[in-house]
């Protein structure tokens, strides 16, 4: 209840305290939370290391941009684009999943990484011979999201309270983040969730116990991707402009860092990770102002310092708390009592 009031009042508090920019940062935090929850299904639940996850964000964003912008003169409504984005991204998830089914660990990571890059390169080059994506220029003038005739791109006044565009998007994103959280929770604690955990633990044993590992993995890829697709569409509408730039490998790695840092497989951990890795870098921007004020000049470029601190934080984290800040119950057990990760047992006994 209290939390509800806080979440509802948050954009106003932030607006009053830190300014409009920070409300937008809050919006981005929610987008990243959805992304991180989606990747968590693939990596955290099913144990499939996916380094190309941003591709699904790209698919969702481009789908929205192409169908709701002057690019093709199409302006499909949001209520149609939202599920369509989830569906199409989900299909792309299976498309990625299908050829990687036999791969494990490092090999899977490499292939998914390649997939992410392929999608980005396609977006970059699909401007000739037929111009679809506008290439590196990206797509601009994307329709803002509009719900029941109310465009979130404009400022509205309800009951004497002024809602800026950033405020309105906040509520939409919040609602969808809560939905994605709910779905994640339900999935984790279900027959499907157990099957994911089983293939994460021991794929061969899971298969031998009657789990169709192919279907269950494809399902994980599709579910994770559909969350990515949804947030991609939201991103396109919110930002009004997208280009292939936004969907590079570093973004995939960033989202992976969010779930590793926060606690893989644990929803609260994943949310915390997304929050910290979105908000902290922004907060560290002010280091530049601080330097100007204190030394009268910029000594270290704040952007460099940000990456430095970020890298340092990750290294320290992996050294001292590899299970993440809020680990899932299962991860906690894994890191508590052991030692090195266990090799899966061989199928036959070596000769004694």
């Amino acid at each position: 209840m209290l939390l509800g009031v806080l979440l509802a009042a948050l954009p106003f508090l932030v607006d009053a305290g830190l300014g409009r920019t920070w409300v937008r940062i809050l919006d981005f935090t929610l987008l990243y939370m959805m992304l991180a929850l989606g990747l968590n299904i693939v990596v955290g639940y099913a144990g499939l290391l996916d380094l190309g996850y941003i591709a699904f964000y790209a698919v969702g964003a481009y789908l929205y941009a192409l169908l709701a912008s002057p690019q093709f003169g199409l302006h499909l409504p949001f209520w149609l684009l939202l599920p369509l984005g989830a569906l199409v991204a989900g299909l792309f998830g299976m498309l990625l999943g299908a050829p990687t089914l036999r791969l494990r660990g490092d090999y899977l990571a490499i292939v998914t990484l390649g997939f992410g890059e392929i999608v980005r390169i396609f977006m970059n080059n699909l401007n000739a011979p037929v111009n679809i994506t506008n290439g590196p220029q990206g797509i601009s003038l994307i329709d803002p999201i509009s719900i029941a005739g109310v465009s979130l791109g404009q400022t509205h006044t309800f009951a004497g309270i002024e809602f800026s565009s950033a405020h309105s998007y906040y509520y939409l994103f919040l609602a969808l983040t809560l939905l994605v959280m709910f779905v994640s929770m339900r999935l984790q604690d279900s027959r499907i969730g157990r099957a994911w955990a089983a293939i994460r633990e021991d794929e061969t044993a899971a298969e031998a116990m009657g789990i169709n590992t192919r279907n269950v993995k494809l399902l994980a890829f599709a579910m994770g991707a559909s969350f990515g697709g949804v947030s991609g569409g939201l991103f396109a509408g919110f930002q009004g402009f997208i280009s292939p730039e936004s969907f590079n490998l570093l973004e995939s790695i960033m989202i992976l860092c969010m779930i590793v840092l926060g606690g893989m497989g644990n929803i609260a951990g994943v949310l915390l990770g997304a929050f910290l890795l979105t908000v902290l870098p922004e907060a560290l921007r002010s280091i530049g102002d601080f330097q100007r004020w204190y030394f009268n000049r910029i000594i270290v470029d704040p952007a460099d310092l940000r990456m430095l601190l970020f890298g340092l934080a990750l290294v320290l984290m992996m050294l001292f708390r590899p299970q993440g800040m809020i680990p899932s119950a299962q991860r906690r057990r894994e890191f508590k009592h052991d030692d090195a990760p266990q090799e899966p047992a061989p199928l036959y006994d070596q000769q004694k």
Partner: protein
Amino acid sequence: MTSRSDGPILLETRGLSKQFGGLAALHAVSLNIHHGEIFGLIGPNGAGKTTLFNCLTGLYTPSAGEVRLDGQRLNGLKPHTVAKQGLARTFQNIRLFSHMSALENVMVGCHVRTKANVLGAIFRNRGTRDEEAAIRSKAHELLKLVGVDKHAHSLAKHLPYGDQRRLEIARALATEPKLLALDEPAAGMNPAERVALIALIQALRATGIAILLIEHDVKLVMGLCDRVAVLDYGEKIAEGAPEAVQRDPKVIEAYLGGSIGGAIGQPA
């Protein structure tokens, strides 16, 4: 002892072979296992017993030969389909889902006989809730049956060794098999646990499940099995009633002549 070795055939292998490079781990092995039978598979280390299990359950693709369960061909089926057809197994090197609880391990075993999908998981409709409750209570029952219920909520990997072996049996039983294949289930068990295991296997057979048992403990095999087959260097060298097999000169030769030199009757 009541012999169940004359009922209808449940599992049939014909000329089953498996080649690893130059090594014939299995060579033209033909077996018939009947409904309700306890069938023992023995042989020195490296004889190919586990390889046979892997070929039966789809983990290995046989180089030649055929496997049928209740008349259905199993060759070429994926392991999960084999489980669905009614052949479940345990592993010689325990392969539990070590960071899941004992109960969850068994619940995973129920996967193949249940059907809740993503929508069911999200909306938790009536059917899904009922199914979930049924899975849970069945898993508890199976844990009780194998005697691991006191550890239901412990992590699989924290269970004592003998309990881990029994948990593997419970997990396999959750798939509702017609034939349960046990790969050295008594390994690492103390005498009291072995006695309990024998009782368990007999109780399972009484419910109509046939059992294929790999075991080095010859006393256990002889006391429990209706029939026994002996593998040596991938070939079946003897088959029949336990007492007859035990006296078979070829079998004695295989065990005494083996590099291990251990007499028959000693667990490896």
